[in-house]
C-alpha cells in the first residue's frame, strides 16, 4: 500500500509567534520552526499502515527551503522518500492556492491513501484535506481518531462532540487525523542516520505545470489588510488563600453579577 503523508512546517506553537509587518505574512524567522504537531500523528499512522500492509511512505511538503528540516524529521521517523515543492512565488499563498499546488504534486505521485493532519497550528484553518478532496475528486474521511484499512476500504472513527461517527469509503482516499489516533514514535539514532541518505525530490511550480504568476500573495483569494497585537488585559486581582480565598472569589463573581 503506497501512502503519501502531507507534512507542514510551522512556527513552534509554544513560542511567541507573529506576522511580518512588511507584508502581513507569517514571520517564519522569529520562532523555531517545527513539524506541525498533528502531522506527526499522520506520519505515525502512515508508518503503522506500512508495517501492516507493506508499501512505501512518501512525505509531501509545500514550503520554503527551511521546511527541509521538517522533511528530515519525517524521514528519520521512518518515511521512505520525500517531495518538497519550493518556489519563491508561493510566498503568501492562500489556502485555495496551496491546495492547488498540493493537488498538482499528488497527481504526480501514486498512492492508495493520503494521510494528513486535521489542522495546522499556525493557520488553524482545518480545511486543506477538504480542499484537496474537492480538487482531486477523492473521498475524504476527516478528523480520524481511528483508522482501519481492509479489502480496498478505509474505515474511520471521526471524532465528534461527545462521541464519533463511523465513516467508510473506497480507496484511494484522503484521511485526516487528530492527535488522539496514536502515539508518534521518536526518531531513533539509526533512523536519523538513515534519513540522510533517503531521496528528497525538489519541485518548482514549473515542474508541476503551474504558472508562478498565478500564485502567491498578489494573487491570493483573500488578503490580510492589517493586524495588531491583542490589547493587553488590565492587571487582575490576585489574592492568597488564607481561609477566605473562596469567599473572596465568590464576592468577585457576585460583583460581576454572575452569582
Amino acid at each position, binding site marked *: 500500500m503506497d501512502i503519501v503523508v502531507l507534512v507542514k512546517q510551522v512556527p513552534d*506553537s509554544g513560542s511567541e509567534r507573529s506576522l511580518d509587518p512588511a507584508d502581513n505574512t507569517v514571520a517564519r524567522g522569529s520562532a523555531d520552526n517545527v513539524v506541525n504537531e*498533528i502531522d506527526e500523528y499522520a506520519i505515525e499512522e502512515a508508518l503503522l499502515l506500512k508495517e501492516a500492509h507493506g508499501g512505501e511512505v512518501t512525505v509531501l511538503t509545500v514550503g520554503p527551503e527551511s521546511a527541509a528540516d521538517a522533511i528530515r524529521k519525517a524521514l528519520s521517523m521512518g518515511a521512505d522518500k520525500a517531495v518538497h515543492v519550493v518556489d519563491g512565488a508561493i510566498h503568501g499563498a492562500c489556502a485555495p492556492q496551496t491546495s492547488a499546488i498540493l493537488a498538482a504534486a499528488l497527481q504526480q505521485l501514486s498512492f492508495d491513501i493520503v494521510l494528513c493532519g486535521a489542522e495546522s497550528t499556525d493557520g488553524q*484553518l482545518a480545511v486543506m484535506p477538504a480542499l484537496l478532496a*474537492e480538487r482531486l475528486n*477523492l473521498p*475524504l474521511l476527516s478528523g480520524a481518531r481511528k483508522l482501519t484499512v481492509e479489502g480496498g476500504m478505509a474505515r474511520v472513527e471521526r471524532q465528534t462532540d461527545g462521541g464519533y461517527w463511523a465513516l467508510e469509503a473506497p480507496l484511494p482516499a484522503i484521511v485526516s487525523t487528530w492527535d488522539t489516533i496514536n502515539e508518534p514514535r521518536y526518531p531513533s539514532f539509526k533512523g536519523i542516520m538513515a534519513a540522510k541518505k533517503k531521496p528528497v525530490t525538489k519541485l518548482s511550480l514549473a515542474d508541476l505545470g503551474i504558472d508562478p504568476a498565478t500564485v502567491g500573495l498578489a494573487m491570493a*483569494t483573500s488578503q490580510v489588510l492589517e493586524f495588531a497585537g*491583542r490589547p493587553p488585559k488590565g492587571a487582575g486581582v490576585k489574592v492568597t488563600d488564607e481561609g477566605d480565598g473562596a469567599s473572596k472569589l465568590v464576592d468577585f463573581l457576585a460583583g460581576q453579577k*454572575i452569582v
Partner: protein
Amino acid sequence: MAEVLVLVELNPTGEGVRKTTLEALTAARALGEPAAVVVGGPGSAAAATAQLAEYGAAKVYVAESEEVEQFLVAPKAEVLAQLVSDKQPAAVVIPSSPEGKEIAGRLAIKTGSGFLTDVTEIAGDGTATQVAFAGATIVHSKVTVGTPIYTVRGNSVTPEPAPGAAEEEQVAVQLSDAARATRVVDRVVEQKSSRPELTEASIVVSGGRGVASAENFSLIEGLADSLGAAVGASRAAVDSGYYPHTFQVGQTGKTVSPQLYIAVGISGAIQHRAGMQTSKTIVAVNKDPEAPIFELADFGVVGDLNTVVPQATEAITARRG
C-alpha cells in the same frame, strides 16, 4: 437588498437550531438580507423555521433528502454551490464547526471563491476580524475573489433577534457521485451530559493536572454544576486520563469564549490559552503564585484547589439558594 446565504446547523437533538446558527444570522445582517439554508433529512426544516424567522431570515431554502444525512459533508457543499450559482448571493456565512469549515473549503473550490475561517466579526464592507496565534494577534482580512465565504467562530457574535419573513422555498437535491463518496455508517454518542455544550456554554470550569486524579474531577464538576457551567480540561488532565478528550480546551481541543472561564490547577500554557483567551472574564485557582495563568486572570486565588474549590461551590450553592 442583497441576499446572504446562511447555512443552518440543526440541533442534533431535533429541537430547533444550534446557537451558532443564530450567531451566523446576526453576523450576516452586516452584509445584506439573510437567507437561511437548511440541508437535512426529510422534515428537518419544520423544527427550525420559527427560530429562523425570529432571527431575521427573509427566506428559508429547504433542501431535504434522505441521502444528505448518509454522506459526509460533501452534499451540503453541493447544495450551497447550486444556490450560489442560482441566487448570486453577496456572501455565504457558515458556523465555524469542523463540518462548517470543511463545507466552506469545498464551496470555495466549487465556486472559485476565497474564504475566511473563524471570523469573530463581519463589517459592512466585507472585511472580517480573525484572531490568530492563540489569540495574541487580531487580523483584519478581506476576500478578494469570487463570492466571499465566512465561517463565524462560536460565541463571538451575540445573537440579536430581528423580524424576518422566513418565506420557504424548496430546493431539489440531486447529489453527484462525488458527494456520495464517504458514507456515514453510524453516529455514536459516548458521553451524554446534562451540562451545557462546552463551546456554547456561558460559563466553563476547567481542571488541569493539578486536579491530580479522575476521582478528584468531581470537585470541578461540583463547581460547574453550582454555576450551571460546562466542564473543560487541559491536555495534561486529558493525557493523564482524568477526563475524556472531548472536553479538552486549547489548540488541539475546543475553542471556548464564555462570559466566565474558571481555570483550576491549570498552569496556562500557550496552547491552553489558545482555546480560552477570548473569554470575557477569567478566574484562576492555582497554588503557584508564578503560574502564567495569573497573567490572564481578572481574579486569581493562590491556594490549594482541594480547599478553595469545595468552599466556593458551597458558598455559590448557598447564595443561589
